[in-house]
Each structure stands twice: as structure tokens, then as C-alpha cells.
């Protein structure tokens, strides 16, 4: 458990360092995610030890992901406490967010499902 947490933290640390060093727009944790993914792909199933290590890290990672929602609560509280920043714009901003978000989810998922279906039909032919 401790080893797995260490590895996950270490990847974030490397990610953050790369972001600061190259002044990238991508957040450090996302760079850490990409690096960990590359490592996993690269390691493959070379030996029993590697397979076991990957399984252990996966278990810890899945446990953290189970609580992903919880981790947004502290900044979410900040939104409620600072909502007055929006002043007279509050209603209009909420309208943009609600309509914009619903349309974006619908558009993106619809497009992707249609392309996936075309691809499947192509393969069948």
C-alpha cells in the first residue's frame, strides 16, 4: 500500500516538475497520468514481478478513484462562499453554463456514437 502511494505521488511530483520546468499549460497531475500510462504500456507483461506490481498499483489507484467526487467538495464549498463575485451577472452566467454544458455533452456524444456506428458497419462490409 505504502509503496503504491509512493509511486503515484512520485509520478505527480515528476509531472509537476516537468510542468514548472517547461512552463507548460498542462497541469502537473495530467503529465503524471500520461507518464504512468506510458510506463504501464511500456512494461507490458515482461515478468511475474511486473504483473504483480502493476496489479498492486492498480488496486490502490482504484481505491483513490472511488472517492474522486469527495475530492471536489473543498473547492466546491469555495464556489458557494464566493458566488457573490458574479453579482448582477449570476443569472446570465448560469444560463450560459446550463445550456452550453447540456448542448456540448449532447453534441460530442452524438457525434462519437455516429462515427463509431459507421466504423462498425464499415468493418462488417
Amino acid at each position, binding site marked *: 500500500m505504502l509503496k503504491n502511494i509512493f509511486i503515484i505521488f512520485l509520478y505527480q511530483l515528476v509531472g509537476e516538475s516537468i510542468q514548472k520546468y517547461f512552463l507548460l499549460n498542462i497541469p502537473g497531475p495530467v503529465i503524471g497520468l500520461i507518464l504512468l500510462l506510458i510506463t504501464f504500456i511500456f512494461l507490458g507483461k515482461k515478468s511475474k514481478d511486473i504483473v504483480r506490481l502493476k496489479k498492486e498499483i492498480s488496486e490502490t489507484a482504484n481505491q483513490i478513484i472511488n472517492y474522486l467526487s469527495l475530492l471536489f*467538495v473543498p473547492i466546491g464549498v469555495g464556489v458557494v462562499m464566493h458566488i457573490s463575485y*458574479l453579482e448582477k451577472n449570476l443569472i446570465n452566467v448560469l444560463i*450560459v453554463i446550463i445550456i452550453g454544458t447540456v448542448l456540448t455533452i449532447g453534441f460530442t*456524444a452524438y457525434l462519437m456514437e455516429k462515427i463509431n456506428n459507421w466504423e462498425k458497419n464499415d468493418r462488417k462490409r
Partner: protein
Amino acid sequence: MIEKDKLYNIWVYLQAEPLFWITLTLGAYLIGDWLYKKSNKFPLVNPVAISILIISFILLTLNISYERYFNGAKFIHFLLGPATVSLAIPIYKKIDLISKEIKSILISLIAGSIFAILITFYLASYLKIDQEIILSLVPRNVTAPIAMGISEIIGGIPSLTAIITIITGIVGASLGTFTLDLLKLKDMSARGFGFGLASHGIGTARAMSKNETAGVFAALAMGLSGIVVSIIIPILIKILI
């Protein structure tokens, strides 16, 4: 009166310590999560929104500043970084499906990102929102740290963007399922991708709690759209304004 003084002293001590605020956050989340599961994961019963409302209500009633609360709750907030890194694991598990659908992923990623930016810009312009606030709204569909960085570059207000981004996440997590059901979309990877692209981490958390494939594609969309949006917004804004 001595008893009351004692209680007051304990309270003064507790509210200055992280333990109290961490416990409060966990407790509020357990209530939110319990209601979410009780409602059969009904999307409008969002555990994040419920716990935020419970905590905010307590802070406002007791007249506690957000800074004091966050000073304790930051230990929970800290785990967002490691959780993001951890998303590499479910993505890795679905790597075959991802490479099979790579074409639709890339097209939906770019088209969806441009759509998100344009719809926000035109809606906000139509409603005559001040330009500074429009610029703070435009990057709202990507994860908060990226959105805040973009907002700063294009002349928005980063702290406002943070607020807008979180609201976007909660809206996406609460209304996404209805939208996708209305469109009769069944492909779990497409549904998840829509969630992650339009409502980043909070949408991803919701997708993850319903279906693993959806969760993976949400995480993928969240990471990729962060990169794409931060490249195209500065270009699009120059054309639009």
C-alpha cells in the same frame, strides 16, 4: 455557566484545527453519497452538490470564513492530484478499446472542444455579458487548473473561471444523463466522452460511478480536451474579438 465556557473553549480550539473541517467534509459527503445511493444514483441527487450545500450552510450559519474551512479541508483537496495520476490505470485497462476507437475519439475531441468554446462565446455575447466575464467563461469545460491558466492568458479573471468551472462540472454531472438518454445514445464510450469533455473531473466522477467504460472515456476526454482547448482558445479568441 462554567460548562458553557468549557464548551466554547473546546469549539474555539476545534475550529482552528484541520481535524474538525476534515471530519465535517467526510460526514457531509457520507450523507450526500448515502442519498445518492438511496435514490438509485439519480443524477440530480449529486453527492458533491449535496455535501457542498451542507458545509456551506454550516459555515454561513456559524459565520466561519472559507479560508478557515479550507485550511483544514485542503488535506482532502490535496488528493485531487494523486487521483488524477491514478486515472492512468482505468485508461490503461481499456487501451485496446481506445485504440480501436481512436478515429472517433480524435474527431469528437476536436469538434467537441470547438463546439464548447463557440457555444459559450455566442450565448454569452447574445446575453450581453461583460467581455471580461465572457473571457472567464470560455474555458469553462476543462479542468479548473487548465481553465484558470487559459483565463489569465486571454484576459479573463482566473478566480471567476474557477467558480464557473466547478458549476459547469456539477451541471454536467447532474444533467448529462438526461441529455444522453433524450438523444437515445447507448454507446458507453461516447456517453462517457461527452461527460468528460463538457464537464471535466466532476463529470468524470459521475460517469465512473455509473459505468467503467464511460468513466475511462470521460477521463480520456478530460485530459485530452484540456490540452486541445488550451491550444485553440487563444487562436479562436483572436478571430472572435
